[in-house]
């Protein structure tokens, strides 16, 4: 190989990554790191609303999508500026422990109980989630759980508890704890023809449905509330508190709330803005 060509290639590949990663340090463009959940990112919401925020403020939002547990952990370590998840009690604990400044409700989406069209537990069309869960247990019908400390998983466990059932002691051949994200868990449920609790957003984008369909929805118990928190700059000096606060302010502002409401897939709305709602 000609030395000249070699040199050109080396320079091109050597400098660009350096330039890219230097960008945070030297560019005039600000960015914040937001820890959120995989289900939120996979719903496509961020692709829809973040460009609007950037156009307005010039601030780039970098979303790292993990499970709720991991996202809050990121906040505790100071690796994120803002945390945006859907696990109210965990969020309130986060603030109480001093890791976050204040929790504000932003929006909610809902969970749906999905299962095979054949529906061995006979729960289709019910508006009572707890009763549906009891019937699934009675029929010992296969049920897939995420088992990954995520918001969805916490919500699922809370529902079982309310129904008076302890899945841990009931772990038999019917309750399957997979330790996966929402998409892979749906894949598993599809191949097992099992029941599963999913957020509506992931379900709408999910393309590998097999024999599954929505069986129970609309029960208030299935509403999934999102909250946003600024990571405490007192604990972590480097937190970008002005741009971070700007993002939070925008999310709960009429403009941000409108952007959230306008997001839809196949004509269906996924998220319902409710900033400022009492007790949310």
């Amino acid at each position, binding site marked *: 190989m000609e030395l000249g060509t070699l040199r050109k290639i080396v320079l091109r590949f050597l400098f660009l990554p350096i330039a890219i990663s230097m960008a945070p340090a030297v560019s005039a463009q600000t960015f914040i790191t937001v820890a959120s959940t995989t289900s939120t990112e996979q719903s496509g919401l961020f692709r829809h609303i973040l460009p609007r925020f950037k156009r307005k403020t010039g601030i780039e939002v970098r979303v790292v999508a993990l499970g709720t547990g991991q996202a809050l952990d990121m906040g505790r370590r100071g690796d994120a500026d803002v945390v945006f998840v859907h696990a109210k009690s965990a969020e309130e604990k986060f603030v109480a422990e001093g890791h976050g400044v204040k929790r504000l409700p932003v929006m909610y989406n809902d969970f749906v109980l999905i299962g095979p069209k054949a529906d061995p537990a006979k729960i289709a069309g019910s508006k009572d989630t707890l009763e549906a869960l009891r019937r699934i247990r009675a029929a010992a019908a296969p049920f897939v759980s995420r088992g990954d400390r995520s918001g969805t998983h916490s919500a699922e466990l809370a529902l079982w508890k309310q129904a008076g059932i302890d899945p841990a002691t009931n772990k038999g051949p019917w309750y399957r704890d997979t330790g996966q994200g*929402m998409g892979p868990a749906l894949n598993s449920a599809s191949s097992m023809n099992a029941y599963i609790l999913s957020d509506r957003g992931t379900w709408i984008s999910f393309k*590998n449905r097999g024999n599954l369909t929505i069986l129970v929805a609309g029960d208030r118990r299935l509403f999934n509330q999102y909250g946003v928190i600024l990571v405490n700059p007192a604990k972590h000096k480097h937190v970008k508190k002005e741009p971070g606060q700007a993002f939070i302010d925008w999310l709960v502002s009429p403009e941000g709330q409108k952007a959230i409401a306008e997001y839809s897939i196949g004509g269906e709305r996924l998220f319902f803005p409710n900033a400022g709602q009492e007790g949310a």
Partner: protein
Amino acid sequence: MNDLTLAFGEAFALISGLDARLIEIVVLSLQVSVMAVAIAAIVGLPLGALFAVAHFRGRQAVIVLLNALMGLPPVVVGLSVYLLLSRAGPLGPLGILFTPTAMIIAQVILITPIIAALSRQSIEDAWHEYEEQLRSLGANRLRASVTLLWDTRFSLVTILLAGFGRAAAEVGAVMIVGGNIDGVTRVMTTAIALETSKGDLPLALGLGIILVGLVLTLNAAANLIKEAALRRYG
């Protein structure tokens, strides 16, 4: 089989449409892995030459360790680098977590042992052939290792390609230290992981086909250059 046909269709559509996001992802993947191989080569090749030619107490143990490090689990490397670069960790103030730099660091840690161990073997074999002649001409071990690095350059290209392949195929480490951020740290492998977890298997497979195609093309090109040079230099 139907998914596979869909996958090829998706792949073709993405490539021929010159999808902007796809190009961005591919370019970033190449930048990260090429840079990682370059750094790993600068560190690993001299190390390999040194261990091939030098004699010191504990040499065998070092070689065994080097060979074992080739099997470092990527996800363990990713976790370790994450803990190092996290704000709560020792190198936190550098602020390079969730950037391509962090991904390059992780990949360098993964492939330097591969390049060092394999080049050590290659150069040691050459040393057996060259040792008497080089020593007769008055070369000391340092000089000899430099001479051998250049003389075995064609085998070393293959070793670098192996390193590149490992880097480009890796998903565990770059996912953890990069965060798979849309437009910033999303590379081919993490994009495939994302689409798979979304259940969009044809798209994931399509991306996978492109990735394999890319690596194949690179290897073929390098092989052509190697063959031509071998014919010229013998």
